[in-house]
C-alpha cells in the first residue's frame, strides 16, 4: 500500500521550481518499512518499479526505522511519480484516491556504490 503525502523537503524544493532536479529527486524517494526492506531484499538506494493497473514509475527506496511505517505500507512525497499511479476514479467525489493505493514493488536496479545515507526523518 502506497501513501503519498507532503514533506517539508518536497515543499521547499517546490519553491525552487518544479522543473529543477531537486524536486524531481525528492519526489522519487520511496520510504519503505525496514521489515519490508528485508522481506523484499532491498537496500536504501535501490531502484524499484512501482506499478498498478493505472501505470508504473521508477523510484529509489529508503529504509525506515521499525515502527515508523506499518508493515506493508510505503510513503512517497507527492509528485509526478506518484500521480503516474493515481487512477482518475473519484467515486462521485471529485477526489481521486491519492493515498492508500495498492501497488506492486519490483526491484529493477541494485544500488551500485555506497550512496550517502540520508538520515531517517525523526
Amino acid at each position, binding site marked *: *500500500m502506497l*501513501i503519498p*503525502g*507532503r*514533506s*517539508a523537503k518536497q*515543499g*521547499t*524544493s*517546490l*519553491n*525552487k*521550481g*518544479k*522543473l529543477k532536479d531537486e524536486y524531481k529527486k525528492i519526489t522519487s524517494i520511496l520510504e519503505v518499512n525496514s521489515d519490508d526492506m528485508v522481506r523484499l531484499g532491498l537496500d536504501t538506494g535501490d531502484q524499484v518499479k512501482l506499478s498498478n493497473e*493505472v*501505470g508504473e514509475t521508477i523510484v529509489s527506496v529508503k529504509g525506515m526505522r521499525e*515502527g*515508523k*511505517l*506499518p508493515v*506493508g*505500507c510505503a*510513503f512517497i512525497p*507527492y*509528485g*509526478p511519480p506518484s*500521480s*503516474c*499511479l*493515481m*487512477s*482518475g*476514479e*473519484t*467515486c*462521485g*467525489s*471529485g*477526489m*481521486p*484516491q*491519492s*493515498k*492508500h493505493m495498492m501497488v506492486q514493488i519490483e526491484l529493477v536496479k541494485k544500488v551500485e556504490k555506497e550512496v550517502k545515507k540520508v538520515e531517517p*526523518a*525523526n
Partner: protein
Amino acid sequence: MSSAIKDNSIVNEKIIEDATCTFCGCCCDDITLTVDLDKKVITKAKDACVLGKAWFLNHVIEDKPIARIDGKEVTLDEAIEEAAQNLIDAKFPIVYGLSDTICEAQRQVVPIVDDIGGTIDTTTSVCHGPSGMAFQGVGEPSMTLGEVKNRADFVMYWGGNPAEAHPRHFSRYAVTPKGMFIPNGKDDRTVVIVDVRQTKTAGVADIFVQVKPGKDFELLWILRGAVKGIEVPENVEEITGVSRELVIDLVNKMKNCKYGVIFFGMGLTMTRGRHFNSGALMALATDLNEFTHFVAKPARGHGNVTGADNVVSWQTGYPFGVNFSRGYPRFNPGEFTTVDTLTRGEADAAMIIASDPVANFPKPAIDHLKSDKCKLISIDTKQTPTSEAAHVSIQTSTYGINTGGTVYRMDDVPISLRPAFDSPFPGDLEVLTKLRKRVNKLAKEKNRPYATSKYI
C-alpha cells in the same frame, strides 16, 4: 550574507514587518522580511519556517516572456485575446486552480466562467473537497486558530502531518503557545496524534495512536459510539489496531476536557471512504458538544485555497466543482470536478490558474490535458509542467511577494498581504480583469450562454 553586500545595500534595503507567508494554509502574518531592492530578492525572512524561508528566499525575478502562444513569445494582449477566443468557443470549458492567488483575482474568475458557460473548480476538489462535502452533510463545529491557542486543553491531529506540511502550526497556534486560559502552553494541553505513519508530527504527541491503514472510519465510528454510551467492542484492536484501553481513555479525555479540538488532514480525505471519513470526524466533534465544548477543523494546504473556497461559495453558492453550462450554477462533485471531467475526456478547453495539474493529476487526466482535444491555457507565476504544455501561457507576478491582496487562512480569517518588491510581470488580478472584460464583451456579442427557464 557577507558584510560587503550588507554595506552596499543600506540605502536600498527595505524591512517589511508583519508580512504574510502564503505558502501553506497557516498564513503566518508575523514574518519580518529584509528586501534587497536593487537585486530584487528577499535576503532574510525572520520567523518564517523552513517552507516559508524557501518560499521567500528562493523568489527571483526570472528572465522569461510574459506571454507565450505555443511556446512563441507574444504580447499580453495577444495572449488574452487568444485565451478569450478559446474559452468562448469551447462547449465545455473548465477553469481550475485558483488556490495560489489573491481573492481579488479569484473574484474575477467566476464571472468569466459564468460568461463562457463553463465549469469552475478549485484545488479544493483534490484537497479538502471531501471535507467540504462532509460539511454539507453534517455541518461542523469550528473555530479560529486563536481560540485553540487561548483555550484548547485537548488537541488532536488526525491523518495529517503538520510538522512537515504546516511547520508553525504547533508553535504558533495549537501546541506550544501560551494562551489566555492556557497559561503554561504545552503543559496545559493533551496532544494526541492519530496516523497510520509515525511521522515527524508524532514526536510532539502525548499520545500517539497508530491506526491500521484504511481503518480511520471504523475507529471514528467506535469513538462516536463510545461517546454516545455504546460499549467499545472487545475486538476493537483487531479492527483498528488501537487497544480497547486506549480508546476508552481517549473518549474519557475528550469528554472531560474543557475545550477540545481536532485538526484533520488528507489522511482522511484522500483515502477510501473520503467524505464519509471527514464526515465521521465532524460528527464526532459535534457529538462531543453534548459534554463539553468541542471543535474540529480541516488543516488546509495551499496558501489561499480557503479563500478560493469562500469566493466561489459566495458568488455561486457552492464551494467547488460548479458548472454554468445551463446559465446558472450547478454543483455535483464527481460530475463537474476537474479530475473527472478530464479523465472522461469531456473538457474541450481548460484554463489553469496558479496550479499544476500536469504534475499532480492522475495519468488519464494529464493525457487529456496534453491532447489536442483540449485547449490548455495556463496562468501561473512559475514555469511548471503545465505552463510548458499549455497552448497559451501567461506568467504573472507572485502574490504576497510582488502583489498585495487578501488571502484567507485555513480558519477562514482574511489577511491582507504586504508585498516586498514589484515585478515586471503583471498580477493575476490585472490579467484576469482584462480577460473578464474581453470575455464579457464576446459573450454579449454571441449571446452566450443560454439562460434557461427550466432547471434540472
